[in-house]
């Protein structure tokens, strides 16, 4: 760890000149609230926060940071769950919330040009009247930003059919760590040569600051059917998922909520009338041409029943469907009712392994005496074991971290990976060695170095900390030790 640097008054003055005084926060009590994102386990306040209005201001901010040797961290809404927007010692946070304009909507070519601070759900609302929507729908979509979604390659319940963010980003404008602006991709979705847009998506803010993006818009499906399978336990619900996928159906979403989660949401403002007696609920959604949907929904119903569903219901109308989704999407937050803190885990396993993994995940929770609940994108094999805890209890905190590690190791053992959509950030940087060897990490570091040779853009994320590097990869020694001003 680098020694805490003294904040230079020149840096602050420079930042104020770049964005205006009102848009630069530097009082310690203001910075305090920026000490973490939605992962409260990892904290560290920045030395300043700036709120730029446009690309030119971002460029000025980046150049000012460079001139004073300060690293910087882009931030959207701070709903990230892996510590991605947390600032390491001496860093300046570039909060993109004011860059929230939708610059252009092209219905014919089906794209929108947006600034990074546009809130995900606002984009879909804005194009609804044109019969279009923005498909990636993270559960946090009421708050999270397109910039954050791009950085984390975010998914959502409907990723199963529509893909993750990377399938919907056509072009980005990126302010590089030297202050220059790079334009990648094109609105038509094709660009010759290396797919650098693809490299930026999922880079967790380590390649530069996205200041504009062209994203794909998707036609709103003609009709939607939502089937609710009520199961005695999670494992049976997972089996139903397997048989639905095997049948060749392509549902737009297959989500599972376990009993603890159901109770938490039913106690909250997002109560949707989910059955409290169910051991698990499977939300299966189908969309497309109206004529095809009824037989598909009937098929899902049969498959769910033969996998052991107690009963199967259908959303009666759009309103009820909305309620189910609000409940699903409010689930993490609702878990706040169970204990002061929540550790939202994220890992992926092959779908066929879901029943087995789920049973083992629950066993890990029990073994450590923890309150663990599951709400997850079952169709993608993307697990979210959520552990409720109280950070004031040191012992419990330690058990939470240990259980988390065991869950990750389990998933990797089963042929999975350590994150499906929340990113590596600071949370999992020391576990990245579970899925990547030295040469893999080297390749990634070279890619990063092509954009950010001095490692000043969101340092300390993705790559293992020094200690871990030394153990696993001698060439990477001190890679992420950031030069501080």
């Amino acid at each position, binding site marked *: 760890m680098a020694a805490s640097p003294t904040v230079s008054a020149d840096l602050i003055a420079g930042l104020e000149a770049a964005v205006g005084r009102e848009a630069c926060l530097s009082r310690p009590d203001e910075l305090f*609230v920026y000490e973490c994102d*939605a992962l409260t386990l990892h904290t560290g306040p920045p030395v300043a926060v700036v709120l730029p209005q446009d690309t030119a201001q971002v460029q000025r901010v980046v150049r000012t940071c460079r001139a004073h040797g300060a690293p910087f961290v882009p931030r959207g809404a701070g709903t990230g769950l892996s510590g991605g927007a947390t600032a390491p010692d001496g860093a300046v946070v570039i909060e993109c*919330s004011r860059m929230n304009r939708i610059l252009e909507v092209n219905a014919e070519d089906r794209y929108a040009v947006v600034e990074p601070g546009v809130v995900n759900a606002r984009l879909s609302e804005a194009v609804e009247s044109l019969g279009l929507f923005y498909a990636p729908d993270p559960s946090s979509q009421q708050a999270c930003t397109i910039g954050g979604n791009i950085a984390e390659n975010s998914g959502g319940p409907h990723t199963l059919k529509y893909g993750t963010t990377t399938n919907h980003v056509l072009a980005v404008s990126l302010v590089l760590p030297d202050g220059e602006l790079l334009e990648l991709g094109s609105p038509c979705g094709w660009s010759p040569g290396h797919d650098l847009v693809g490299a930026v998506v999922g880079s967790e803010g380590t390649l530069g600051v996205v200041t504009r993006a062209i994203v794909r818009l998707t036609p709103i499906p003609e009709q939607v059917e939502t089937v609710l399978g009520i199961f005695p336990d999670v494992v049976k619900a997972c089996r139903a998922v397997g048989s639905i996928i095997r049948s060749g159906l392509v549902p737009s979403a297959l989500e599972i909520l376990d009993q603890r989660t159901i109770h938490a949401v039913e106690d909250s403002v*997002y109560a949707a009338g989910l059955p409290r007696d169910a051991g698990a609920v499977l939300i299966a959604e189908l969309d497309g041409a109206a004529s095809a949907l009824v037989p598909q929904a009937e098929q899902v119903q049969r498959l769910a029943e033969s996998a052991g569903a107690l009963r199967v219901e259908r959303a009666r109308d759009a309103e009820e469907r909305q309620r189910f989704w609000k409940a699903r999407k409010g689930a993490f937050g609702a878990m*706040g*009712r169970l204990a002061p803190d929540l550790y939202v885990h994220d890992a992926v396993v092959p779908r066929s392994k879901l029943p087995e993994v789920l049973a083992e995940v629950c066993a890990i929770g029990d073994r450590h005496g923890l309150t663990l609940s599951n709400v997850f994108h079952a169709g993608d094999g993307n697990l979210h074991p959520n552990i409720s805890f109280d950070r004031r209890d040191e012992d419990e905190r330690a058990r939470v971290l240990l259980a988390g590690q065991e869950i990750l190791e389990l998933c990797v053992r089963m042929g999975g990976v350590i994150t499906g959509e929340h990113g590596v950030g600071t949370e999992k940087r020391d576990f990245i060695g579970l899925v990547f060897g030295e040469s893999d990490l080297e390749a990634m570091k070279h890619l990063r170095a092509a954009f950010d040779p001095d490692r000043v853009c969101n340092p300390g994320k993705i790559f293992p900390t020094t200690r871990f590097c030394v153990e696993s990869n001698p060439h990477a020694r001190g890679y992420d030790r950031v030069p501080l001003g």
Partner: protein
Amino acid sequence: MSVELDQQVGNSLYEKSLDCVHCGLCLTSCPTYLETGRETSSPRGRIYLMRGVAEGRLSVSETLSEEAFLCLGCRACETACPSGVRYGEMLEETRALVVGAGARRGPSAVLERWGLRLVASPRALHAAVALLGGLQRLGLDRLGLQLLPASLRARLGGLVPVVPPAAERKPLPEWFPAEGVRRGRVALLSGCVMSELFGSVHRATLRVLARNGFEVLVPRTQGCCGALHAHSGDDARAAELARVNLQAFAEVDTIVVNSAGCGAAMRDAGHWLPGEGEAFAAKVRDIAEFLDDVGIIQPKGRLEATVCYDDPCHLLHGQGVGPAVRRLLEAIPGLELLAHREADRCCGAAGIYNLTQPEMSAAVLARKLDALAETDPDIVATGNPGCLMQIAAGLTARGLRARAVHPIELLDEAYGRADEAPGTQPAIP
């Protein structure tokens, strides 16, 4: 700044702050976050500051003091929060903490103290309003404004309400009989500002209740509900005022309130007066909620008008009443209810916020007016005196044609028209 933290408040605040899991789902419900984009000015950020103070990691700092009062207290964040955070309570405790620590200063604080003393004293308020009305009739009010210090003048400028004629400001009858088949007896909160500036709304409320078979008591001994005091961190005064009303309404089971802010505060009486306050709170019903519950006699008179109903925060987020009002309005023949964008968002009035935080208030109001301008209704209906004044002033300043009225006035109008003559009538002028 080092300030001794009141241990009891600190503990209570700390316990409540633990309900927040930092998910951020409340961010975009918050008008001040939408305006500023700052985490510090968001519900999650404010709760983090409160927790920091309660944990002893922060002192009652500059940022907390500012944010506690930049917050509109609209409680939209509570409606958005899946974790059940009781933000409204936390805010009041924090404000009390800040005030207690002497960290609240500046012209806003002075204005607030002034205003609060005025509303708590019916006689002083009546005299002040009469004076203002007199000046307005003589055309001298603008002149009077010039005599104020510049900082206050800027704040009061467009907001001074037009004082209604004396006939509307005279006290309500203590008892108003039911019409037709008697269905029950309720009491009406007359309140402070409502009686002085919105006597017509009170009279409409009495008529509508009577028309629906309810006799109405308006106890003379009642006073101000204490909402503004509680919101400004003066818990002691709020408790005192609540006690007065507790006695004034002792003999009724239902207290009907037509001011959303008062209703929400009265429902919180348990915070200031544990035990007896809760029983008192349980009697409180918003007028729309009450009428929707008991079922109204279908109005026969037509009202050909397009109406946007704008939810007062203290009705929707504070009392969970929204659809009930829309149902009442939809019952009026001829009336077309139009949905406008962000009807559930604050208009920036927030008690006397428009005086204490004029800039933010204006920004929040501008957004509201943008939404209303898009839909362009004949009438904007909203059930809270502060919102009515704020929106009315905004509509005029923006040059929009709509008038602002209380929903109960529309219902009253519809009943009234049926009495005159059947058939279509022009919209209320």
